[in-house]
């Protein structure tokens, strides 16, 4: 028990006030007195009867009420009951189930029978009264001979026990049980073991009959006592019993009626009825007691004595009631604690692992405003930590390019890794306050870093950069509001403070995190969380943005762009950043209900609403590339049974080699995704029952309530083509990102540079900046960044950096761990890091990403280590 204060001490916790020998002496005395009393009752009943029934017995309820332990320790019956145990000749039997159930009931019955019989028998007969005393003493002794502890009499069938438990439930004076040395655990809810809680425990027992017997008794007690004092003397036995039964019955009826009507705590009414019974008793008994004492003493007591007794005991009862109610509150509090019982233990293997995990995480991130403390291992990104800490944060490319996860560093900036180039560009584009970092890039090096998940707004908006403005250029139009368009607009504004910039966008959204649209499907993100720019971004930069407005045509000769709404924009320079659409190969039966592509946020929201509306259960994703797998994962998270069909021999074949593809496939299989490789899709068909299937050659039809095509991108080249620009797969551009028209540039998915249109964010960002620079007259050539991609499936940890297919002369390091779904591969070419695949090795993502992107030279020590299979040399 946790409480510092013990409200309910058991007898072992109660201080002993009286030495043990003293109790023994008192017991010998009490047995002698009892025997003497019996003799007196037989020999001199005219003296014995009033002494016994009117003077001694009426004192007992008050003793039970005030110091019940006194009677429990000196009662002559208890003394005899414990004699066999004391001298070691008890048989020490345990109660049988039946005895345990009914002994208390026997005690109640005996009490009722004996007390009611006083009226016609015991009060008048000394012999009967003496026999009663001897019966009590003998019964107690016999019980002690047979049963262990006090279970033979005192705690079972003793007729005084029910009264003692009612009146003695809230003792004013606690006396330590001086009998049981030691406790043998003979009785349930033992009164001698824990006097302060025994009655409460009875009331709260989960067996309704167990508490029921006790409630029955207390319910009838006040009526029973009234009956005792209201029956005229000299009635025949039958009428006496009838009178008692009537009064007790009425009392019991009242008890149960009130029990139903008053919503008192479990022990509330029992305490109230106990108090009533006690005071009824003394209301009547006080007078007869005083007169009997007076008679026996030979001098009449003062007339005020009975009323004094009544009032004193009534006041005492008020205190008793209050204390009982308070104690029931404590009891409920304490037992509630135990009822919940959350105690569990961890297996033996836990300690070492917990110690390690705790020791590994010496650094700490504190997240405002609720000061959530996240332990951190040095080297971890803030994004990982915040995500693992259960905080809500968005994420996109996870390499600092997209700008999905800006956070404010409130304290401890010095404990973070320095800002890299990509991150610097992104931070500049976003234009938040100086304390902003991209969570995916900032790594904690040690110590404590305090962050807020919302970036602070900048004090003064950035208007212009260092490069001189070209005054000839007055108007720049950018078609497209994706990352390429926005980056281009940003860089134009940075280099030219006052030209007009128009951004024309067909979608009705400001720049958003396209990489996270699959999260819209399973509801992890809402659209609001996907916007990548601060609310006033366009306005602060004085950029006119035309959302929900398609560009209709370009007139290169007139240098105008006609918008679909009839508006015509003039331009000095035009930057095409129209992006791409999903590429949908010809598929038989494609295009009906449940067929989707995933390119825009609206696509994702349509998939979600269709899945919910149609109660779809099965989904097929055609295409096992990055987007296809992320879409499949999103549908899986929605609870659909998902199959991925891929025409190549392994998944992510543009990012991974075969082993890598198999590793991720096994992981996705374990998640519950069905993967079909080398699949030749014959079409989408609907059977007679209306169920849609994907028909794959040589495979059983795969149910496809939802059919998503993720087969790559098709650049949006219609405008450029119509304008007469040179177009291949996309708009052909030179190193300056210039198209065949000198005033028109292209960047992002719509640009084809050296025959390549990879459709990746870092490419778009880089190209847009180059296009913006050149459009303003600055000469700058585009150089393709080393590409890295990442699969955003929770737990998969797939990263591919640079190239993965070895060429002649490359040195290749490969390690596969099938059981743990891990795989790593490193290509070294000409002494430099040339490419890597990392699956399930998050610790290597950053150092290898940096090394490959920077085309870093590999040291001899690193080479030697790798050749010996020691990859840790790279960390």
């Amino acid at each position, binding site marked *: 028990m946790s409480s510092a204060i013990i409200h309910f001490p058991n007898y072992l916790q109660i201080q002993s006030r009286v030495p043990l020998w003293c109790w023994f002496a008192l017991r010998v005395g009490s047995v002698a007195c009892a025997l003497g009393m019996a003799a007196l009752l037989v020999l001199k009943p005219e003296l014995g009867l009033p002494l016994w029934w009117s003077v001694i017995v009426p004192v007992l309820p008050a003793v039970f009420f005030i110091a019940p332990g006194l009677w429990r320790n000196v009662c002559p019956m208890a003394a005899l009951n414990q004699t066999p145990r004391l001298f070691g000749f008890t048989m020490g039997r345990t109660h049988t189930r039946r005895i345990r159930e009914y002994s208390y009931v026997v005690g109640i019955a005996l009490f009722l029978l004996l007390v009611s019989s006083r009226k016609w028998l015991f009060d008048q007969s000394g012999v009967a009264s003496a026999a009663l005393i001897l019966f009590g003493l003998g019964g107690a002794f016999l019980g002690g001979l047979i049963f262990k502890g006090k279970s033979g009499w005192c705690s079972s069938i003793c007729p005084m026990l029910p009264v003692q438990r009612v009146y003695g439930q809230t003792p004013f004076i606690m006396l330590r049980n001086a009998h049981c040395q030691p406790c*043998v655990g003979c009785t349930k809810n033992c009164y001698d073991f824990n006097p302060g809680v025994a009655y409460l425990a009875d009331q709260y027992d989960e067996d309704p009959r*167990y508490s029921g017997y006790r409630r029955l008794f207390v319910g009838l007690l006040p009526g029973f006592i009234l009956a005792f004092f209201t029956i005229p003397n000299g009635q025949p036995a039958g009428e006496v019993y009838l009178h008692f039964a009537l009064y007790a019955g009425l009392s019991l009826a009242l008890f149960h009626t009130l029990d139903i009507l008053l919503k008192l705590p479990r022990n509330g009414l029992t305490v109230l009825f106990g108090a009533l019974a006690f005071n009824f008793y003394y209301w009547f008994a006080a007078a007869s007691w005083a007169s009997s004492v007076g008679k026996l003493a030979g001098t009449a007591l003062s007339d005020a004595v009975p009323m004094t007794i009544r009032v004193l005991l009534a006041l005492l009862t008020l205190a008793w009631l209050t204390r009982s109610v308070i104690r029931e509150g404590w009891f409920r509090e304490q037992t509630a604690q*135990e009822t919940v019982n959350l105690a*569990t233990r961890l297996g033996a*293997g836990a300690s070492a692992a917990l110690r390690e995990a705790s020791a590994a995480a010496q650094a700490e991130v504190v997240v405002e405003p609720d000061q959530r403390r996240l332990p951190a291992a040095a080297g971890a990104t803030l994004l990982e930590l915040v995500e693992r800490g*259960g905080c809500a944060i968005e994420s996109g490319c996870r390499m600092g390019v997209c700008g999905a996860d800006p956070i404010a560093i409130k304290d401890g900036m010095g404990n973070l890794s320095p800002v890299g180039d990509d991150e610097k560009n992104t931070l500049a584009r976003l234009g938040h306050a100086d304390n902003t970092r991209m969570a995916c890039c900032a790594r904690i090096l040690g110590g404590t870093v305090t962050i807020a998940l919302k970036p602070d707004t900048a004090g003064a908006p950035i208007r212009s950069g260092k490069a001189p403005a070209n005054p000839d250029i007055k108007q720049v139009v950018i078609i497209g509001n994706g990352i390429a368009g926005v980056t281009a607009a940003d860089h134009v504004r940075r280099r030219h403070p006052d030209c007009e910039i128009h951004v024309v966008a067909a979608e009705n959204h400001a720049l958003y995190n396209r990489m996270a649209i699959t999260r819209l499907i399973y509801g992890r993100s809402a659209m609001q969380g996907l916007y990548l720019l601060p609310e006033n971004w366009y306005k602060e930069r004085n950029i006119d943005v035309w959302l929900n407005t398609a560009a209709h045509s370009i007139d290169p000769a007139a240098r105008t762009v006609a918008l679909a709404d009839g508006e015509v924009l003039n331009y000095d320079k035009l930057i095409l950043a129209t992006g791409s659409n999903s590429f949908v190969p010809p598929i038989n039966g494609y295009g009906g209900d449940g067929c989707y592509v995933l390119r825009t946020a609206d696509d994702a929201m349509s998939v979600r609403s269709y899945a919910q509306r149609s109660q779809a259960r099965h989904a097929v994703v055609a295409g096992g590339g990055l987007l296809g797998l992320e879409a499949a994962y999103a549908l899986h998270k929605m609870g659909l049974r998902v199959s991925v069909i891929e025409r190549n021999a392994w998944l992510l074949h543009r990012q991974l080699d075969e082993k890598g593809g198999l590793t991720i496939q096994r992981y996705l299989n374990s998640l519950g995704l069905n993967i079909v490789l080398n699949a030749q899709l014959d079409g989408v068909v609907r059977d007679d029952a209306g169920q849609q299937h994907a028909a794959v050659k040589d495979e059983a039809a795969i149910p496809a309530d939802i059919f998503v095509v993720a087969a790559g991108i098709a650049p949006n080249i219609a405008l450029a083509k119509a304008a007469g620009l040179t177009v291949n797969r996309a708009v052909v551009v030179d190193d300056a990102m210039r198209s065949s028209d000198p005033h028109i540039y292209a960047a992002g998915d719509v640009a084809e540079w050296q025959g390549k249109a990879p459709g990746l964010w870092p490419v778009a960002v880089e190209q847009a900046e180059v296009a913006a620079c050149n459009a303003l007259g600055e000469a700058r050539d585009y150089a393709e960044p080393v590409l890295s991609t990442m699969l955003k499936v929770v737990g998969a940890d797939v990263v591919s950096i640079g190239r993965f297919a070895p060429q002649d002369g490359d040195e290749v390091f490969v390690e596969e761990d099938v059981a743990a779904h891990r795989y790593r591969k490193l290509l070294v070419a000409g002494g430099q890091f040339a490419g890597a695949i990392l699956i399930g090795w998050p610790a290597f993502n950053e150092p290898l990403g940096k090394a490959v992107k920077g085309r870093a030279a590999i040291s001899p020590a690193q080479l030697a280590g790798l050749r010996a299979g020691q990859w840790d040399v790279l960390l």
Partner: protein
Amino acid sequence: MGLSSFFDYGVPDASPETEPAPVFLGDASTDDWRQLLAVAEHRRFDVGEQLIEAGERSRAFYIVGLGELEVLAPGKGGRLQRIALIGQQSIFGEQAFFDGRPRSASVCATQPGELYGITPEAFEVLAARAPELARAVLFDLGRILSLRLRNATGNLFKGRR
């Protein structure tokens, strides 16, 4: 109803209802535990810090590595009352993990410490990476939940002892 502590007679067969606390992942190796902790949310807490608020919709179950927590529920007059203590190296919160319903009670720290939360998502990652271990986790959580349920409903046969 847990009345046993009032009547802890210290006699071996006298209080049969006090059973030892159930063990979570008793057979798991340290390596298994490493795998489990690797997918968990890790948090540090100070005295008085509220880790769960009644009614919130978080779904993790928690492993207390260090420290002590108290479970608080509204008692008389809406005042929060402690209904249980959670010591270190124990688990809690598995109900919401399974049923996704709002948390039934608040949890505050009474001693500083650390805890690890396993969300259903993290569990899914574990299940994909280490299905055997995940099965053991699930089975043990179910067992603990069942024992707590038993504890709450009470033993029907107790009255006949």
